[in-house]
Structure formats: C-alpha cells, structure tokens
C-alpha cells in the first residue's frame, strides 16, 4: 500500500513538473486556403522571433512550362529577368533565352548570338539582365560577359587585367545588374571580393560590396592557442575563414544595388556608395544596419529528421529581387520558401515550400530565380523546369498597401488599410504597429499605447507614454509639487529629529546590522564576524526578497525597457539564478577558503553574501518603479545605476571575503576567482548528474510504458 502511495506521489510529482514545464496541448491547425502551403509571418520583439500563421498573401496562378509553350521543355532554368513588359527566361541547359510577353506567349527565342561574324553559344550561362541598353548574359561556363542588343553582341567582357584582380581570380560571371548610370555590377562564382564594377564604357573600376569576416573574442583566443602548437605544414593546410560570397544581386526601387549573402544573419544587403550595408533594421531605440538581423527562418539551422545522421539543415537564400515599392523577395532554397521584406526589414509573409520535393502547386525542388513581372511574382525551378506564377491576394494587397504607406511615414493614410487588416486577421503584428503609429500621429496616445503594447512596439509605446505622462504632469503639476515639497520636508524633519533624539528605528540589532551593510560594510561585516551578529533568518529574508524582486522585474517591469515573453516565463528559473546561485557561491566559497586557510564559517559567509545583495534588491525595486515612469530616451543614467549596483554588490562580496576570512584584499580577489571556478565545477557535476538521472528516469518510464501499454 505504501509502495503504491509512493508511486502515486512520484507520478503526481512528475505530472506537476510536466505541468510547470510543458506546454499546452493544442489541436490541429486549420487550413482554409486553396493552396497546399502555409503562409506565415514572424512576430518580433521577444528575444527570438515567433512564427505565426497568417492569411495567404500570395496564391499560385499556374505554371509556365517550356513544353506547354510549344518550344520544348526548359532544361536547367537558371535565371529570370524582366524589362519593358517582356520576360527573359535563361534556359541554360538548352543554351537559349526565351522571351515572353505579358500574356506569357513566346515572342522570341535567342539561341545563337553573333559577334564579329562569329556565332557565340552561351550554354551554361547563369545570369542575365535586361534594360534599355540591351541584354547582358553572364556566360559562366565560357567565363565572359556578353553584352547584346537585337541579337548582336556588341561587347564581350573577359577577365580584366588590373592590379586589383588577383591572378588566381576565377572570372566566371554568374549574376549581374546595370544601374541607371550604366555601371555594371558583376558577380563571379565563389568570389569573396564582392562585385566587380564596370563603367558605362565597360572599363573595370574595382571591387564593390565585399563581405567581412567576423570573429568573436573566443575564436580569436582559440586561434591564437592553436597557432602556438601547430606546425607550419598544419597551419598552411588549415582552412581559412573566408567571407561569405554574394549569391544574387538586384537593383531596388531607389536604384541601390542589393545583394544576398550566405551568412546566418544580414542575408539581404543594400549597398551604399561606399559598398557598406545601408539597410536599416530598427532594434531597440536606435536604427542599426541589418547585418545582425536573421532574414531567414528562426532558428536558421534545423535537424533534418529524414537524414540518417540527423544532419543539420540550414536555411540558405538563393535568389533575390526587389519590386517598385521597395519590397525584397528572397527565396530559401532549402525549404523552397519565399520571404517578403519591406525596406525597414519587416517581414510581410513567408510562403511556398516543398523542401526539395516540390510536387504541389507553389512548391519547389530547387528554386533558382525570382522575378516580379507585372502583377505576378515568378519563381523558376532549376530541376523541374517550371516557372511558378504567384498572384497577390486581396489580403496581400491590403497588407502591402498599408505597409508601404507606413514605411513612407504616411501613417494616417495607412490607417484605414490597417483597420481592415486588423478586422481580417488580428495575428498581424504590423497592423498593431501601423495602428499605433497612426494613433500617435492623431494624438490618441492611449490607443497608441494599447496597440503598441499588443504589437510589441516599444518605440511607439514610449513616444505615446511620454506624451501621456507629460500631460499628466502638466495637469497635476501643482499638487504633485506641493506633495513633493511636503514629503521632502517631512523626511528632512524626521531625519533631523531622529538624530537629535537618537531614535532607534529598527529595534532588532541583527536586522540593523544587515541593513547597515551597504553604508558601513566593514562595521557590519566585523559585527558578523566578531560579535556573531549575522542572522540566518534575516539573510534568508533578504535572499527571498532578492528573488521576488528579480521575478518582479520581469513581471512588473516597464514594457518600454524589457519585453518578457510571459508565455515562456517560469518563476522556477529565476529561483535557480538567484537563490541557487547564492547557495552555490556560499558552499563553493566555504570549500575554497578552507583550502586557503580562511577563518569564515558557512553561516557567516551565507549572511555576508545575502547582505551584499542589498544594492541589487534596491536597484530591482527602483527599476520596477522607474521603468514604469521613465522612457528609454532617458535610459542612460538608469542603466548606469544598474551597473553601479552590480559593481557595488561585487565589491561588498569581496569585502565580505576579506573580513569574514581575514584575507588580504588581493587574496580575497584570488579566492573569489577560485570560488567562481569551484561554482562552475559544481554546476558541471550537478548538470551531469541531472542528465544521468534524466536518462535513468526516461529508461524507467519507457519500461513502464512498454509494460503497461503493450
């Protein structure tokens, strides 16, 4: 009977833990669109962006296939380009360019071109570009750029002889664009030098828009240590970390050259005159370049469950285009998905799919190029030889109209569109943000705050909040001022009187010692050590207060300063980060200091450590109050205060080691570092044990399941 009860208790505990840690079970998502793929967007604002299903912005409107056009199947579709109502299809395997009109009827097939009487074949070409000046073909296989007009080649560009072009440079053009000044930007296969720029007279100008190698401090140290021990041969044989090369380029609506990289962040780039990325992604309260923003799915890498070795699969963009409204369309070749971004790097939608299977409409085996042609969005598939036509839906039109007006700061004009979006789909984060901005513009600050809070738009919220707060202060200035004066005067009188009469406000001497620690640390710590004035109860109370204050910073802290994802929040985790850490510090410090002949007792260390937390406790409570009153524009002193409090706590901890263990200050620093090391070792051991127990528990549960369920 007892055994049964024990098992039921154990099960209850497991269930309770599952309740705390597990998510809700939810039913199958509904699909109502007549398309086989899911359309989704991302909500931003939390630590990680969250995918959210949305209404379809684009639907398939059929495919264009060579054989259905009566010209034979496309073979290795490499690139699409459009100009002046004509679509140019680079059917590379067949060595031809098929020109289609707006109705997708064949206007022309360009197979062989002539140059100075010689017939030139371009089978194996990978890119092309069309504008008024002609048609340009990146003839990859033959390592040349063909400049043509009316079927005649008027210029062939080969590898330039220039000091800046290394001898080993492989001039194999893959993609190109030509800007309004006639400058040609050429991308070569595998080149990490950036784009090659040719003038309107086809002279080589130099390289442009090269990617940088980024490294971390830890990587640098690792490399340094490795270099100390490796031989010259090994060093020469090691793989160099090279910058990612550009994959595709296009000209955007403002004439900027934009490119696509294979990085895990900053994949879409808009190049300024200096060749740096000028695409801005608003993060926090200041715009910054989008170099650190992940344009692909989050997380970038996935475990491929279909692979035998559970290999990691990484989102990888392969094609980019931009439309006249400034929207970027990028194709992820890994999953066959199309991402649409506005110039502010807001994701409009993600759709498509297939993941190298592509059996259904709007899905792909290996997408190769993307192009906006009239009202259609076209995506070519290298393997299947199909060009899929996507048409924007009513919802998509509304969304992109509203968004483009908002991007242009025409918030009031955008408002009616956002209202329609809001009515149609309340899962659209951009609608909340757009409505918040419109309300702010209309000086409806409370509405702006409400929309901004739901849309996780801290910037707009802060602006609206500042207006509401200032208005409140303006309206209530007199009584607030009077109240402040009365309170200040009262406080001064109270302090003066209490000193004069030598009033003891806190009767409990041990509590008094604890609270005096930040002001008179040596005195308090000496009292703990020599007069046994440390109190475990008081210390524990302070520790719990620290835990509560830490939890409250997440739950009650100001929205403008920190957005806590409450759907993932669990107060158990801060418990480990506060109480657990203090206990671990206490234990580790006691163990370490015994080795260093420290004189402190466990109780004394515990009390001193908890008392040292007072600055942080005060800071956390101050943060809770002030973060709800201040706006982030006045953030700097606030952040500084936080740093000071953390530093102060660290100093108090060092002093406590000095006094409690009777160490010199430098020895205290040494033992503090040793304590941190000890903590890491204990944490590692605990983690290992936890993993082991998890495995054992998993084994027991699977045996239990096998026995009961078979």
């Amino acid at each position: 009977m007892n055994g049964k009860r024990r098992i039921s208790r154990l099960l209850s505990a497991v269930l309770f833990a599952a309740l705390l840690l597990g998510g809700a079970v939810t039913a199958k998502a509904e699909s109502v669109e007549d398309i086989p793929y899911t359309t989704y967007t991302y909500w931003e604002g939390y630590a990680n962006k969250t995918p959210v299903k949305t209404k379809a912005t684009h639907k398939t409107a059929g495919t264009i296939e060579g054989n259905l056009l009566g010209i034979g199947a496309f073979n290795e579709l490499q690139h699409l380009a459009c100009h002046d109502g004509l679509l140019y299809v680079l059917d590379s395997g067949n060595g031809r360019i098929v020109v289609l009109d707006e109705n997708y009827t064949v206007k022309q097939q360009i197979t062989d071109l002539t140059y100075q009487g010689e017939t030139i074949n371009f089978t194996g070409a990978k890119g092309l570009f069309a504008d008024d000046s002609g048609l340009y073909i990146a003839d990859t296989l033959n390592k040349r750029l063909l400049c043509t007009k009316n079927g005649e080649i008027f210029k062939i560009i080969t590898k330039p002889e220039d000091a800046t072009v290394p001898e080993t440079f492989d001039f194999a053009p893959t993609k190109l664009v030509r800007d309004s000044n006639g400058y040609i930007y050429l991308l070569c296969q595998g080149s990490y030098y950036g784009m090659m720029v040719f003038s309107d007279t086809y002279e080589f100008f130099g390289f442009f828009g090269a990617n940088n190698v980024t490294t971390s401090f830890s990587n640098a140290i690792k490399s340094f240590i490795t270099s100390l021990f490796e031989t010259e041969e090994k060093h020469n044989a090691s793989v160099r970390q090279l910058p990612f090369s550009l994959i595709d380029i296009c000209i955007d609506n403002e004439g900027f050259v934009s490119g696509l990289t294979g990085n895990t962040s900053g994949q879409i780039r808009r190049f300024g005159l200096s060749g740096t990325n000028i695409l801005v992604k608003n993060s926090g309260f200041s715009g910054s370049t989008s170099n650190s923003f992940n344009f692909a799915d989050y997380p970038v890498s996935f475990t491929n469950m279909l692979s035998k070795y559970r290999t990691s699969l990484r989102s990888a963009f392969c094609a980019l285009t931009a439309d006249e409204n400034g929207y970027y369309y990028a194709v992820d070749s890994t999953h066959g998905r199309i991402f649409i971004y506005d110039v502010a790097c807001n994701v409009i939608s993600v759709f498509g799919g297939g993941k190298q299977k592509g059996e259904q409409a709007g899905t792909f085996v290996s997408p190769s190029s993307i192009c906006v042609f009239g009202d259609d969005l076209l995506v070519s598939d290298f393997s299947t030889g199909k060009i899929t036509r996507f048409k924007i839906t009513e919802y998509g039109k509304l969304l992109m109209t509203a968004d483009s007006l908002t991007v242009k700061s025409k918030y009031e004009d955008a408002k009616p569109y956002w209202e329609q979006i809001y009515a149609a789909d309340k899962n659209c984060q951009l609608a909340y943000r757009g409505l918040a901005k419109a309300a702010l513009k209309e000086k409806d600050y409370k509405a702006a705050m409400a929309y901004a809070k739901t849309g996780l738009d801290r910037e707009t919220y802060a602006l609206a909040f500042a207006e509401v707060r200032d208005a409140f202060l303006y309206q209530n200035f007199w009584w607030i001022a009077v109240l402040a004066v009365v309170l200040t005067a009262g406080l001064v009188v109270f302090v003066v009187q209490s000193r004069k009469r030598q009033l003891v406000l806190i009767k409990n001497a041990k509590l008094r010692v604890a609270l005096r620690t930040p002001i008179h640390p040596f005195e308090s710590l000496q009292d703990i050590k020599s007069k046994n004035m440390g109190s475990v109860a008081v210390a524990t109370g302070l520790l719990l207060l620290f835990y509560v204050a830490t939890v409250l910073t997440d739950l009650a802290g100001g929205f403008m300063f920190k957005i806590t994802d409450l759907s993932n929040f669990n107060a158990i985790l801060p418990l480990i980060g506060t109480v657990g850490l203090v206990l671990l510090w206490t234990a580790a410090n006691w163990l370490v200091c015994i080795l260093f002949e420290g004189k402190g007792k466990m109780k004394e260390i515990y009390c001193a450590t908890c008392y040292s937390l007072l600055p942080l406790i005060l800071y956390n409570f101050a943060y809770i109050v002030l973060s709800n009153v201040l706006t982030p524009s006045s953030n700097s002193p606030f952040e500084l205060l936080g740093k000071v409090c953390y530093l102060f706590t660290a100093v108090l901890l060092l002093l406590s080691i000095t006094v409690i263990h009777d160490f010199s200050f430098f020895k205290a620093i040494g033992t503090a570092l040793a304590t941190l090391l000890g903590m890491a070792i204990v944490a590692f051991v605990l983690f290992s044990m936890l993993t082991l127990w998890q495995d054992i528990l998993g084994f027991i549960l699977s045996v239990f399941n096998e026995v009961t369920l078979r």
Partner: protein
Amino acid sequence: MLSFFLIAVVFALSLCGCGKKADLNSLKTYRLPESVSNVKSGVITENDRLELSWDPDRLCVLLKNKQSGDIWSTIPYDFYASGETADGYRADGICSALRVTYLDAKNKTENEVNTNSNLSYVNVQKSDTGLRITCYFDKVNISVPITFILEEDCLSVSVENALMTEGENKILRVSLLPFFVSAANDDSSYLFAPSGSGALLYTDDAQRQARKYSEPVYGRDASAQTIYQDTETESIRMPVFGAKTSDKGIFAIITAGAETADISAVAGDAQYGFSGIYPTFCMRGSASSLVKGSANTNNDITKYSEDVVRLSKCTVKYYLLDKAHNDYNGMAECYRNYLEKTDGFRQRETSADAIITLLGGLEERKLFLGLPYHTLSPVTDFAQAQSILSDILGHTDAKLAVNLKGFGSSGLDYGKAGGGFAPDKAFGGKKGLKALSSWAQSNQTDLFFNLDTVFLTESAGKFKVREAAVSANDVRARYCDYNIVTREQSDSVFAYLTNRLTLAKSASAVAQSIQKIGMTGAGLSTLTSVAYSDYASPDYYCKAHMSDDVTSILHSLAQQGISALGEKANSYAVRLLDYVSHAPTCSSKYYALDEDIPFYQMAFRGYATLSGEPINLSSEPRIAFLETAATGSALSFSLCDHYNDTVFKSPHSAIAMSVYADIDDTVNGYISELKPLLAALSNAQLLSYTREGELSVSRFGNGVTVIVNYGETEKETELGTVKAQRFLFGRGA
C-alpha cells in the same frame, strides 16, 4: 461451480474467436493447384445493357455497352482491338490486370509482380453471373483470385482477400485493373480523381512528361507516424474515379474495402500511350518510424503487420457512361444514382443559408506568482453566442446551422474525448447552453454541440488513454501537429486516438451527452472526417471498417432523434448527416492534377446541406463567396466574440480572423446576398458545372442556372449581363 461454468464459457468463446480469426486474417498457405481450368474465348454472360467477354489468349476481360457498342477492357480497348503487342515496360503497364506488391522474405524489401510478366498459371472458372480468375505467381508463392460479376448496370470486380494464398513472401498491396479505367493519350480525354472536391488529369503526352498521382482514400491514416510534412493535402472523401475519352466514359466506385485503398493514376505516359486510374488495396498495415540508433543516427524502420486485414473482399463497381453523359457531370449523376439505390441516400428538405462555426475557447498558459498553469480561456460564451446569432438573424432573417466548437473542457485543444462530453462552466455551463438551445429552437436555428470523439489526451469514461488505438509498430498511436517552420513533429502538441472498439460504441456516450444538455444536434467534426487504423485488431487494420463504425454511430444517433453535423465529411457519413461544413472546395493541388471540379458538391448537394471553408478565413473572401454561389452551397463562417492576445502563439489562428464585431457587415452582407439564390435552389441537386475562363455555369435539378463571373469586368451570358465578381441566377436555356 459458477466460476467453473464461467471459465468454460470464456474458453469456448475464445476458441470460437480463434476460429474466426484464422479464417480471415491469416492467409492460407500457397499451394500449386492440382489442375487449372480455363474458359473459352467469348461472351461469358450478358444482360439487357451489358455483355461480359473473356479472351484467354490475352488474359483480357471485356465489358460491352450493348446500347452504344462501347467496349472497355482490362487492356485498353483501342490497344487490344488493334491487335498490337507490347513488351517490357509498356506491356507490364497496360497489359497487367493485377499488380501485387509483396514483402520479400529473404531480403525484406518490397517487390512487385504483375500478371503480364510474372504470371505462372491462371485458373478461370465461369459462373452464371461472371468469372473467377485466380492468378498464380509461382515464383513468389502467391495467388490472388479476382471475381468479375456482371450486375444489372455495372461490372463488379472483387479481390477475394479471404481466398488469397501466400508462402513466405507476404502480400502487402494489390492494384486492381490498372488500365480498365483508362483513356488514350490525347487532348480530349481526361481521368477523374476524387482528390478533395475532385480533379481532372488530362491525358495529353505530346508536350508534357508523364504525371503520376496517388492518394489514400479518406485521407492518410491518422494512426501512422508521419516523419515530415511540408505541405497540406485535401483528403479523398469519395471512393470513386473515372475516365472520359472523346466518345465514351467509365466511372468506378469502390464499394467494399474503400478505406484500405489508395487511388493512383498515371497520365500522359508516352511509353504507355494510355492513361489509367485504379485502386490499390492495402492488405497489411505498416508503420515507419525513425529509431535513434547508436552515434545518434536515424534508422528508418518499417514494420509490417503479421496478419492481413480482416476483410472478405475489396470490390470496385464499374459503370459505363452513355455518350450523352460521358463526362464528370455524368459521373456525378451515376454516383448519385448509386448512392440513392444502394446506400439509401434521400434528398432532404433541411437547408440553411449559413453554417456557422462558433469557437468556444482555448487552453491558455497563465502565471500565478510567476508559476505557470493552464486554464481554459473563452473567446465566446453561450450568452455571447446568442448575441452574435441574434444579430445575424436581426440583419438577415436567415436560417442558420450553428456548430459550437471548443466549448468542452479543453476548448479547441486536445483534451478529454468529446471535451468531457459536457459544456465547460467557463462558457456558461449546462444552464447557459440550455438557454442558448431554447433560444435557437424558437429562432429557426439548428444548434449542434461539437464532440471530438477521436482525439484525446486525457481519459474520460470509457475513453481511456491507456487503451488508445495502437499503430502498426505496436505503440499507442499518436497524432502530432507540426512546427510551422521546421515542419517537424511537435512533441508537445499531440493527441492519442480513441481505440476503434470504443469508438464504434461511442454512440451512446454522444447521445447521452447531447440529451443531457437538452440539445438535439451533435457536431461530429473529427468522427466524420478522420479515418484511422487500430492494430489491436485485424478488423481495423489499414483503416478498415471505419465507414461501418461511423455509419452505425450516426444511424444510432438518428434513431434517437439526434441530428448530426459533420466537417469535411467522408462519403460514408454524408448520408446520415444533416449538415456538412468545411466541405472540400479544391484538390490537393498536385502538379499532376490539371483542373479542380466541385464533384463533392455535385454528388452530395440535396442529400445534406453543404458549406465550404469559412469565408472569413479566406485571404480572398469574395472569390470564396462566389465559389459558394456557384455550387449552391450554404455560406460558412467561423465566428467568436473576442480575441485573446495570446492567440497568436497558439495554433488556433482562426480565432484572430473570426471576431464577429469586426466582420459583422461582411457576414450579414454575404448572407443577404446569397439568400435569394439558396431559396431558389432549395435542395435541388447540382447537375452540371462548367468553368470557362472567368465564368462558371452551374445547372441545378430544379431548372435553375447560376452563372458566376469571377473576372474584373462584366460579362454577357445567357442569363444577361453578369457584373464583375457577381453572379446571376434564373431559369436558363
């Protein structure tokens, strides 16, 4: 004494059970026949309309329409009649009446034999009504008998499961008459596949490569683990298929064992010269699963069930269409005739202008002192539901059917079976529901309380998690949702499946629940749309007998006066349903499928009130509305009272698109616009549907024609000028 008696009874019963089991779910051991017989070439049997012939030289069965003279044969007739011969790939394709996939005992791989290349002996027996042909594949020790029975208006062809024999190699699947329903590869023929609402595969081969299509009837087995799913598909809801050539047509209905079948087609294969569509019956279940191996590797292991599905035979009936009806409209008519004659379908008077799905609530994660807990968060309670419905009635005076979904103990999420079979207090409890119900009765509104009896995560009454359905690899079958981005199974979002024995007996639980809460209508969204296996018993292998179980439940409910509403209902359920919401309106959109047709609506309109997907959830509501008008379906809306900020993180994105206060004008506008059409159509059947560019023309049984203009400009039609994105109806020419 009594206990001894009971033991004896139990023992005797178990012996009886064993005997029955041995008859059907274990195949007899393969043995070469002592002698084989054949039947001379010529007519085997005939009736007023049809003639069945046999050609022993080419192993071909021929079916002739005596009125039109059209002939269909197991080898495409044009090829057969030309006297041409074929070999290799082409012959294996078009000259095989049977393909058998088996599990090779030695190397454990799936192999295939066919009657063209691998047949060792054939034993043909003639009867008064037809033929029995037993095909012996001696090399692999397998024999499969097929019977051809000429019925009054069709040819019934069956695979005799119970009479199949096998040796060490195990029969897995049998493809029946792959090119009986076929058409020559040309520009005027097509195959009809029932994917979703229905689709056509054109048979041209001059410009396109061969297209292949295959989907399971009644959707994928929900008990089977799917490792990866990137896209969504529309399940096959009707066990039918057909072919049309320039001058003749054929239509097939799987009448037995449909749940175990896949419908496959190959169109435009230039090597074959013909395109065909056919069923493949599953004889043994299988389950693939990724097993974590050493060094963290994935091992894809497929386990096959030891026994075969307990099913006496799998039958397909082939109907020849006369010249006037040799298209998909004729196929729909043929199917309706079959449903009325055989399945007892009757036209119903009940109809509604709109079927509204009211969303109750969802499980929400909340915090208490920073500690998370889950609670039910309503987005509509019963009082709010009444307010929404009153408003719609006030504006439109429409007849409504309302499905209350997610009003049980776990809301829209998986939880107890049937949501605990009672409304949750959070929505107003039984009292609130009774009030709503009595209001509905006095306001021409049919109210249904939705009960999910298929998926469960918690035990309730007879629905026990530990007794959940078992998958083919002997573990509790789990249905998992997918991560929207990685398309991986979400381990935290799953449900078990009610075991099939409990499901079959769930009518009383549903009826009691509905009667207890004082209602007369049950919403059975999952029961009517999901088919799954339970490998606890061979009766339920390969989804078998799902139709029997569901129809018996619905029949039992009907007998107790409980009306039922289904969602995306499979054909077997439609007969006993008053309403079908979320009826399929498109196919799975495979590249092989060239054109979608509203065959589902053509088949079932008039037997039950149909509605498509909720219009307010569509990204193109106007187009969805026009499609509704074209098929004469009722409008469908998904509605709730308010939005909850946490919805965006839940899979219930519909809530975000369904807040009535924001879309009331749209809802009422569409209902008012469609109401006159639905009044004119009443319960008439949809006889024909054609779509030419941006115009669709639908003709109904009562003479009403509906013309819909999907385009951006107005169009001249037989009924007059149809404005852009509008429709016209009237008595057409």
